[in-house]
């Protein structure tokens, strides 16, 4: 961030915080997600903050910074372990894009480190138990909510809505995807009955959860949240494609599925399994979209290009899951 932007940011933060002497003592780019940028902000008075803003290109399916800020506030109020949201700036003139500021939380979220560690999050079993409790708190947020009106009308039948939305996404794609259709058709044939929709984080997985040696320090990345079936989050976390190679630990490659369920409370396992197949379809579809950003030239990027090559492996898993479920 150049000097002019930094000066404008300082001025804006002084007004937002009510501290006319506020000074930015340090600022470094933390992580370049595919969609967002996170900057550490070291602010006078020993304040450690994070500034979260958009990257050049943004997926249409993700919420903007203002919506993410509202979700973070709702989650914080519901007792979910999230960084405390502090200030929102919707004026792109300050830094070039809307941003919000939250308190900085320490820990590691790096998926490959997390799945290898026996001690992070307080140990495998304790960690996934805690993740179950976090999900239960998130799912206690229910519609209608004026502050979350941007989430739209809750679906009457979340499973069938998922199938319809995924099909619409496939219809927007350049190339037909018979295997994803195969998975979606199976999901349609085997959809469980409707349940009341709740707030679903919708990207609750290893890599988006920050841990230290004692436990969970933050549930991150709220930009995909929706009203849906709570089992969608459990299925996303347990899906094999999000275990980062540590398949034996079924809850995110971190710990046992039973401990996650125990931490959560009442779980309909069959429903979770339906959402695990759904997770593979959804991730494959997102991966196709990401690769298309590279292929189309919207954003030439090696990581996006390689993401496209994850699709065949996901399709293979979808075929195996459908086969096993049809045989059962």
């Amino acid at each position: 961030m150049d000097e002019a932007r930094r000066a404008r940011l300082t001025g804006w933060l002084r007004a937002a915080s009510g501290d006319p002497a506020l000074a930015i003592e340090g600022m470094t780019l933390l992580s370049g997600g595919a969609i967002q940028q996170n900057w550490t902000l070291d602010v006078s008075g020993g304040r450690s903050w994070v500034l979260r803003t958009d990257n050049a290109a943004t997926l249409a399916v993700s919420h903007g910074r203002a919506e993410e800020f509202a979700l973070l506030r709702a989650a914080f109020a519901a007792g979910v372990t999230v960084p405390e949201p502090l200030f929102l700036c919707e004026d792109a003139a300050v830094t070039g894009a809307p941003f919000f500021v939250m308190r900085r939380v320490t820990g590691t979220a790096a998926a490959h480190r997390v799945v290898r560690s026996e001690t992070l999050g307080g140990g495998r079993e304790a960690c996934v138990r805690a993740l179950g409790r976090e999900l239960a708190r998130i799912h206690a947020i229910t519609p209608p909510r004026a502050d979350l009106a941007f989430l739209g009308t809750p679906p009457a039948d979340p499973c069938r809505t998922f199938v319809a939305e995924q099909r619409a996404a496939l219809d927007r794609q350049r190339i037909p995807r018979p295997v994803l259709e195969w998975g979606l058709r199976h999901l349609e044939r085997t959809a469980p009955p409707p349940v009341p929709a709740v707030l679903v984080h919708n990207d609750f997985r290893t890599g988006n959860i920050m841990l230290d040696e004692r436990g969970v320090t933050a549930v991150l990345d709220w930009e995909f949240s929706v009203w849906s079936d709570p089992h969608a989050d459990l299925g996303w976390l347990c899906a094999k494609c999000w275990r980062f190679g540590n398949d034996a630990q079924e809850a995110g490659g971190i710990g046992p599925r039973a401990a996650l369920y125990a931490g959560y409370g009442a779980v309909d396992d069959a429903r979770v399994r339906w959402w695990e197949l759904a997770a593979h379809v959804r991730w494959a579809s997102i991966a196709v979209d990401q690769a298309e950003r590279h292929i189309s030239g919207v954003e030439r990027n090696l990581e996006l290009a390689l993401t496209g090559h994850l699709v065949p492996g996901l399709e293979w898993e979808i075929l195996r899951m459908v086969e096993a479920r049809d045989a059962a």
Partner: protein
Amino acid sequence: MLREEPLAPDLLAIAREVLLNDLLPALPAETAFAARMVANAMAIAAREATQDDWEPAMLARMAALAGDPRAFAAAIREGRFDPGTPGHKEAAALLDELTRARCAVSAPKALGKG
């Protein structure tokens, strides 16, 4: 026969070895991830360059079942290849084989586990 060797797969393989064995250890930590991505891309490209052209045979089988890939995808969506239908086994086998061929390039590890 007329092209000058070494061909693409060999060039990619030897270049990848240099990248991983000589360059990667000398790179600063923050660029190691990018270097690994480059190595991964080269491995995928090398596998693609050595693969037989399996597409015509698969497309012919697809055409016999439903038509082009778009028609096949639509037929699956409509339930024309659901379990219990006459074409189910053949459609499932075709999807398996074309996904196997795709994985051989993009994700050979997935097949190892499958």
